[in-house]
């Protein structure tokens, strides 16, 4: 086996560095053994013992470096020798690793030592540990946004009671969205600061409302997320009520938006009691039609978009007490509609809603029910008898939440990873009964940076191959990390109908269904 050696004069490298060089040499392809070592008497013995004491080293001084390389071919020997000379001069590859050396604390308490004036912990570790970590954060005097799910309801209650006793926020668990002091957290959008405060038990509901507010020219003071279970009897609306109370007395907030699935009766009573304490207008959206208490400062929005719109209108005309405003037709914000060609194929008569936002899916089903009377099938239906037997198989009108557990096991959320939705779009397009494909495209922090590039090829193909109508609701603001205008333009160019609110997309779908069925 070929072996070559070189002596390096007048260069000092400590033995550890030389060991590293030796290690690196031995890791090169084709090298069977190699060494770089100072030519001290002891080291010569080592070289001799390993049959690498070459004649070249005979005259070496103690301070010289002996390099010997044994490899499968002569060419490899000399290639590696050239490499070694570079390493001796310039250092080993990969040794310049500033990034790797960045210190990261291993725990919350050390993190607080690094940033003593930290005021919020964003916790997204696995649910079984999340409660303990959230408790530690509260102990350290930090507000907490608990993104993690799978936290028990008892833990949630304990955490919220503890947080309130310390005047701290505990948003969550399973809180995906919040905007605090102007900073969007987790899955939130870049909205301007303003005078509308939001408390929401729904993440995508908060996203939709805050985006519409921003796009109508107004802004957000604070947007608190409470987690979906806060309004339930077990939690008793602890955070919902605290955040509402905060916003009622917050001087920066002039109008409040409250979003939650219909809370427990006692919680609702407490909500009215709180609202009555001030004159501040509160626009309530319980995500289902609900008979609200007749209070002079309570308004209701039928859809998320309308809720945002009412909040903005109140702000622009604070003297407008016209109750008609509250009951404004929810589709009034999209009057300039273009003509839509109905599917030409008779079998195509059903809508297939493929949502990434849970509340957006819920709202779609609600609007469907309100306008058509019956219910759409879903993995998360309004009425349990409309639950899909197989979540992968659509049935008649179907509106599914692809952010639900059954679709996200072992894969990222559909707002981040579009692959499953792309597959589902393709499947639906091959179904002869599909008339409309209804999608939400949620922008903002945390979401996919170029969803249009993911969607465009398949949507173009659907348009080219079928007469299916595709409707996309793009939820976001122009300040989001994505280029919203580009997303809208790109999706429009595929022949899809693009709306900027969920309600508009859903209403359009429902009306088209009506047209299809009446024709």
């Amino acid at each position, binding site marked *: 086996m070929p072996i070559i050696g070189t002596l390096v004069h007048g260069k000092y490298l400590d033995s*550890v560095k030389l*060991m590293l060089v030796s290690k690196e040499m031995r890791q090169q392809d084709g090298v069977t053994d190699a060494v770089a070592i100072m030519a001290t008497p002891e080291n010569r013995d080592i*070289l001799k013992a390993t049959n690498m004491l070459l004649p070249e080293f005979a005259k070496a001084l103690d301070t010289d470096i002996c390099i010997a390389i044994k490899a499968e071919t002569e060419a490899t020997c000399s290639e590696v020798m050239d490499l070694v000379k570079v390493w001796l001069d310039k250092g080993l590859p990969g040794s310049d*690793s500033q990034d790797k050396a960045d210190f990261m604390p291993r*725990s919350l308490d*050390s993190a607080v030592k*690094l940033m003593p004036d930290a005021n919020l*912990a964003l916790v997204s570790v696995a649910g079984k540990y999340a409660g303990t970590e959230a408790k530690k954060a509260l102990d350290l005097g930090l507000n907490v946004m608990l*993104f993690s799910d799978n936290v028990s309801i008892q833990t949630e209650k304990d955490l919220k009671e503890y947080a309130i006793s310390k005047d701290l926020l505990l948003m969550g668990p399973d809180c995906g969205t919040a905007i605090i002091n102007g900073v969007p957290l987790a899955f939130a959008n870049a909205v301007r600061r303003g005078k509308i405060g939001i408390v929401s038990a729904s993440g995508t509901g908060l996203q939709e409302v805050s985006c519409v507010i921003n796009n109508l020219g107004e802004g957000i003071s604070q947007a608190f997320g409470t987690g979906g279970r806060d309004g339930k009897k077990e939690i008793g609306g602890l955070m919902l009520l605290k955040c509402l109370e905060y916003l009622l007395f917050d001087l920066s907030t002039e109008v409040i938006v409250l979003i939650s699935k219909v809370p427990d009766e006692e919680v609702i009573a407490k909500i009215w009691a709180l609202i009555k304490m001030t004159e501040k207008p509160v626009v309530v959206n319980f995500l289902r039609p609900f008979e609200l208490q007749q209070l002079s400062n309570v308004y209701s929005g039928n859809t998320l978009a309308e809720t945002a719109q009412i909040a903005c209108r109140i702000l622009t005309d604070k003297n407008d007490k016209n109750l008609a405003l509250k009951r404004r037709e929810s589709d009034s914000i999209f009057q300039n509609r273009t003509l839509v060609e109905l599917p030409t194929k008779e079998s195509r008569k059903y809508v297939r809603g493929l949502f990434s936002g849970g509340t957006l899916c819920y709202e779609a089903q609600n609007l469907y029910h309100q306008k058509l009377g019956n219910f759409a099938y879903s993995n998360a239906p309004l009425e349990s008898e409309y639950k899909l037997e197989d979540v992968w198989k659509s049935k008649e009108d179907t509106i599914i939440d692809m952010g639900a557990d059954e679709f996200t096991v072992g894969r990222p959320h559909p707002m981040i990873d579009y692959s499953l939705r792309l597959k589902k779009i393709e499947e639906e397009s091959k179904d002869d009964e599909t008339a409309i494909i209804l999608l939400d495209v949620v922008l903002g922090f945390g979401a996919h940076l170029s969803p249009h590039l993911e969607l465009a090829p398949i949507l173009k193909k659907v348009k080219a191959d079928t007469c299916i109508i595709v409707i996309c609701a793009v939820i976001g603001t122009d300040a989001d990390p994505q280029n919203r205008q580009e997303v809208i333009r790109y999706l429009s160019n595929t022949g899809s109908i693009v709306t900027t609110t969920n309600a508009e997309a859903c209403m359009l779908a429902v009306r088209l269904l009506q047209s299809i069925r009446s024709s």
Partner: protein
Amino acid sequence: MAFKDIETQPLKVINLGLNSFREDLQKQGVPVVQVDWAPPANVDSAVLENIYKHSEAIKQANQKVIDIIQKGSPVLLGLDIARNVVPGMEDNLILHAGPPITWDRMCGPMKGAVMGALIYEGKAKTEKEAEALAKSGKIKYAPCHEHNAVGPMAGVMSASMPVFIIKNEEFGNYAYCTQNEGLGKVLRYGAYSDEVIERLKWMEQIMYPVLDKAIRSLGKIDLKSLIAQALHMGDEVHNRNRAGTSLLFRQLAPAIMRTSDNAENSAKVLEFINGNDHFFLNLSMPAAKAVLDAARNIPNSSIAVVMARNGTDFGVQLAGTGDEWFTGPALVPDALYFPGYTKEDANPDIGDSAITETAGLGGFAIAAAPAIVQFVGGNAADSIKYTRWMYEITASESQNFQIPALDFRGTPLGIDVIKVIEKNLTPFIDTGVAHKNPGVGQVGAGVVSAPMEPFIKALDGLSKKL
């Protein structure tokens, strides 16, 4: 109704979990610290609950332990033959590193060192005789740690060997350690050839009397301040002892000149010390031992007073659990190997030298030793990172030993087993690597993270005593 800092202060975030959330915040210019979080080690939740129930008592006990360690004042008084000073030392007893172990479970280098000691003691003439005697049942084995002693690598100590006498002046307890033999073929790496035995004899007959006289003429040598200085000079006093050895040499040289009646012997002894950068290791270790022994038997304390390996098992003792050992298999270090050797040749981690880490030195102080950062990945920032991590699992910071590169912050001190479990982060140890076969010697040097198992058992052991 108000929430702390909401509306009144700019948001500053600690992100625990998804890294993308940190990136999003950074993009917006929001100050954010990412936590490199790991789930806690896998312990019975009932154990943790019991521990948390007693957290106040544990905290108080730990403070007591830390106070004792901070106050510890180890000084070198001189030398003597082991059988004269080491408690319980007797002719048929061999002390070894790490937790207790029987002959049949000993690793290669430990067996080699035992055989070498038997030859050195004149109990056996050949390798074969030594092996037969070693396993005959006539020889008793016990951990150095159970006899107020420590030993590097195999840590073998027999009755005739000279030992350094270290006293913890604050608390009056003593610790003992043999003299360091240097590198290459040496007993502590399991070598027992003639040259090894000859060197040991020279150390007993020539070096020991010279050193003893010199040290006694000085009265004492303050090891605490010597270690503190060495840390400022690039040692962490475990894998790098060059500064400590040099500082010791400066004190010894004139004293030897004054007290020795044989100039040649004096020169040989000084040459030996000068030629052995690790000479001071056998003083930094018993210094740490003397300091930590004073903190033993403090009920309820979760702080480690011993971490030691015998090449087969890794053992831990806590201040709050008496003499009980908690053990698990020792791991093979991640090392740089001498030419001709690979990880295949390496013995699992061995030696009492982890007593330095237990006292907040060694791997815990590696940020003080930029010259050996190659062992931890090559750049100085890495070594600082490792030391900073160790603050995560310690109860306090040393008031005596500081790290220049961390603006003279005290070294991480007092390994708290509860923090080790909670943060799933075990102590980081600098170490030499022995060949797995007896008689070969050192094959490399590197670092190793302690195994988790002994700490899980230690937590359980503490929980039972609460």
